[in-house]
């Protein structure tokens, strides 16, 4: 054991001059997740250009999103916002007939103070399609926080009573419906008995459907029934949220959604570490079990088995250092997992740090550092990319997790990088996907390992500036 003194986490805040994606990027994964939705981003050419380029080939696949591009007449209020939005929404209704239109407010609608929240109910009544308003703008939020604003707005639209008519037992939950598909009533009833009786639990956070199934089944092993997910596959299948229900977040960037669920929907939040990495997944299950009064079973073996399966990857990263420049708020959970894997982490950059919502995750990070005998990282909120680069050079980092703006320049200077956005789109939750995280993390190390004897690690001319 090293003699590192147990120390508390160290929080700092820099200038906020860092690179990240605009939060409107959340439409890219949310429109795919919520199959009957249409996302209308009300902004300028700048927003459109970002989406078009960031989405890559997705843009050609007839996406269910579009820009309401503001023109000079909109900015100077020569045109009436309501009439303009009505015209566009009717066009969307005619062409796509979605079950919900999500308006994404942008920087411009903030600055010109377009009252989207006020216009939405009026227009909703006129055109007969629900309109959800989310202010996912770059003035207030970074990247994944966009999803947070959308889900917080959707939380208000969840039904507050389970359907009373019990003639044909209507199961609102898409997953259990899927799992029960084709089964007779008695079988369903028999399956119900597999669950422990507990207060309904609703999970929030948009995850790919296979991950939803995996995590639902993981809880089922403990006798825990997932009554619904926010969001569900379809807008029309949003989960029931009654007062007193338990809710649990699947991702670290959902603090607004969590507080909306607690304050507006009177739900009880289970503050757990996030199910990222086998250690996180286990801690997440244990916390839910403890709240619901269930004795978790079989987790020791399950976790050990997963770790054993990761050994080949662990050998590559053990003892190496990782630096998070910070752009998607997954950083704390990923760092915690990688420290457990045997890495050291001098710095975790993060756009925004909600110490209350992430409390359990932060505690697990601290505990993990102590148990692994490594110094606790400095957590830098609103980092300054320029300063970070100086620290990366000084500290001789083995792997930098960063945005694409810095990845190629760092590689040219002989520094291994992993593009952080991939963690947002890859499947990283639950026991089964731990390998996928390490696949991403080790990829640059494996690639550069096979190149290391070629002798051209540093590919920048000397006179080039930093």
């Amino acid at each position: 054991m090293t003699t590192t003194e147990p120390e508390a986490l160290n929080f700092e805040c820099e200038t906020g001059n860092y690179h990240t994606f605009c939060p409107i990027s959340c439409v890219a994964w949310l429109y795919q997740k919520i199959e009957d939705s249409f996302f209308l981003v009300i902004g300028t050419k700048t927003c459109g250009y970002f989406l078009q380029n960031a989405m890559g080939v997705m843009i050609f696949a007839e996406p269910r999103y579009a820009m309401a591009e503001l023109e000079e007449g909109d900015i100077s209020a020569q045109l009436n916002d309501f009439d303009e939005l009505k015209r566009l929404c009717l066009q969307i209704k005619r062409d796509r007939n979605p079950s919900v239109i999500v308006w994404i407010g942008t920087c411009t609608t903030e600055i010109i103070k377009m009252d989207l929240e006020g216009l939405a109910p009026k227009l909703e009544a006129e055109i007969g399609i629900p309109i959800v308003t989310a202010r996912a703008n770059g003035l207030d939020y970074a990247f994944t926080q966009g999803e947070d604003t959308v889900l917080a707005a959707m939380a208000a639209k969840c039904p507050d009573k389970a359907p009373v008519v019990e003639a044909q037992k209507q199961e609102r939950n898409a997953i259990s419906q899927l799992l029960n598909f084709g089964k007779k009533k008695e079988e369903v009833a028999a399956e119900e008995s597999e669950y422990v009786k507990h207060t309904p639990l609703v999970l929030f956070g948009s995850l790919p459907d296979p991950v939803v199934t995996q995590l639902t089944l993981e809880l089922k092993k403990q006798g825990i029934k997932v009554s619904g997910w926010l969001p569900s596959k379809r807008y029309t299948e949003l989960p029931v949220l009654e007062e007193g229900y338990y809710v649990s977040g699947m991702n670290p960037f959902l603090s607004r959604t969590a507080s909306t669920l607690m304050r507006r929907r009177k739900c009880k939040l289970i503050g757990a570490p996030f199910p990222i990495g086998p250690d996180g997944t286990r801690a997440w299950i244990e916390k839910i079990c403890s709240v619901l009064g269930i004795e978790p079973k079989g987790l020791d073996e399950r976790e050990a088995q997963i770790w054993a399966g990761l050994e080949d990857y662990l050998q590559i990263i053990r003892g190496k250092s990782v630096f998070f420049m910070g752009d998607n708020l997954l950083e704390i959970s990923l760092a915690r997992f990688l420290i457990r894997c045997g890495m050291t982490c001098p710095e975790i950059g993060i756009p925004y740090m909600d110490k209350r919502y992430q409390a359990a995750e932060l505690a697990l990070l601290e505990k993990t550092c102590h148990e692994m005998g490594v110094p606790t990282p400095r957590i830098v909120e609103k980092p300054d990319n320029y300063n970070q680069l100086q620290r990366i050079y000084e500290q001789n980092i083995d792997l930098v997790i960063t945005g694409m703006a810095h990845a190629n320049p760092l590689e040219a200077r002989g520094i291994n990088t992993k593009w952080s956005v991939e963690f947002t789109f890859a499947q990283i939750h639950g026991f089964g996907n731990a390998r996928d995280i390490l696949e991403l993390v080790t990829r640059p190390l494996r690639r550069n390992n096979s190149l290391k004897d070629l002798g051209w690690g540093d590919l920048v001319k000397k006179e080039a500036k930093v």
Partner: protein
Amino acid sequence: MKLAYWMYAGPAHIGTLRVATSFKNVHAIMHAPIGDDYFNVMRSMLERERDFTPVTTSVVDRHVLARGSQERVVDNITRKDREEHPDLIVLTPTCTSSILQEDLENFVNRAQLDAKGDVMLADVNHYRFNELQAADRTLDQIVQLYINKARKKGDLEGKSEKPSVNIIGMSTLGFHNQHDCTELKRLMADLGIEVNEVIPEGASVHNLKRLPRAWFNLVPYRELGMAAGEYLQKEFGTPMVDITPMGVVETARCIRKIQEVLNAQGADVNYEEFIDQQTRFVSQAAWFSRSIDCQNLTGKKAVVFGDNTHAAAMTKILSREMGIHVVWAGTYCKHDADWFREEVKGYCDEVLVTEDHGQIGDAIAKAEPSAIFGTQMERHVGKRLDIPCGVIAAPIHVQNFPIGYKPFLGYEGTNQCVDLVYNSFTLGMEDHLLEIFGGHDTKEVITKGISADSDMGWTKDGQAELNKIPGFVRGKVKRNTEKFARDRGIEKITVEVLYAAKESVGA
């Protein structure tokens, strides 16, 4: 408000950033919210840049909305000046700063007091200009700034002894710009013309005072460099050659124009023999036009869409040099549409000026060309309609930044154009031959959203029969049959209806 899914030209600040970051040691500071620095990602990914993109953001957040940027912009400029010692810092407004209407000019003046380098505000309004117009203006602005500086100092240089040229308009994220630049430098060397300055790509702002040395300015792209070229013409009487040397005929025309311009200044050059040699033996394009390969392309239908420069040049190459039938040629440069119409007059049946990709998709579906020459958007329309597409203009993806040498301009450029055109057509032919001789077709026709689509019902056997028809006529047969059915009020199209239609219209 406008419902938009896709745009051809980006927002104004992208143009400014493209020009600013093309110069050596120039830093751009965007006055923008978090996340608007996506330009850095594009440059780093598409150009595979080894160096950090010299663009930072002076972040506009809630505090700025409440109290204004105050010291922030000035601090950010002076900080960058200290950290990286750029020659010039370009403060770049965005859509956000356009409506905040802060006095950015004032920030620039204040920052200039402390900064060692120069500081400038890019004079572009987001709501009035697009990427291309903004790039053109910014380049002009930077050139003027340094010409005026040099003039004040009495630092301007006279004309060079031997004929020399400025190549204006090469920039980062420009379509095949770095290859074009190399090719043009070679061409100038072959013509015995000294290259005085290339701007903005790779240039230093300190060298801008040398611009008047050149005997003439070559502006190969219509979109970027015209304003600077016109300014230099006005100030110093430097003639501008703005003929894009793309294609055999246009390259010759460009060289003849250069000859004329030089001789008018007493150079006494004759490039006719050079043009003849290059045309007949160095470029393969002239020979290709006569070869049997090209004969097979005669009268084949093509459509062209892109920016002004490339769409106009490609239209002329296809029609004049290869005998291909250009059904329509189009541009998204609405601000400069008259120029385009004039250029392609007589080389295509119709001209299409629009920024609406839906309209273009429909026009492609209607024309049913054998090949498309367009942007990445048209390539995807082509994929959906099973029509091959050669990409000739931005917007482009990472595969349009090839590492190998692929100029579009000059004599090597003519070779590249031949390959591009020929490969697009043959691929299409092979594809159809495969189908005619029983190639497998497991794909369904998915033309949803493009006007070739219809809501007519096809029975299973009708559809199966339709699928047996070779791909290159299937669309036409389908439409003719549906028209036939609609005219007669038939709701379901069966095999019988299909053949009845065929007999009636000879589809």
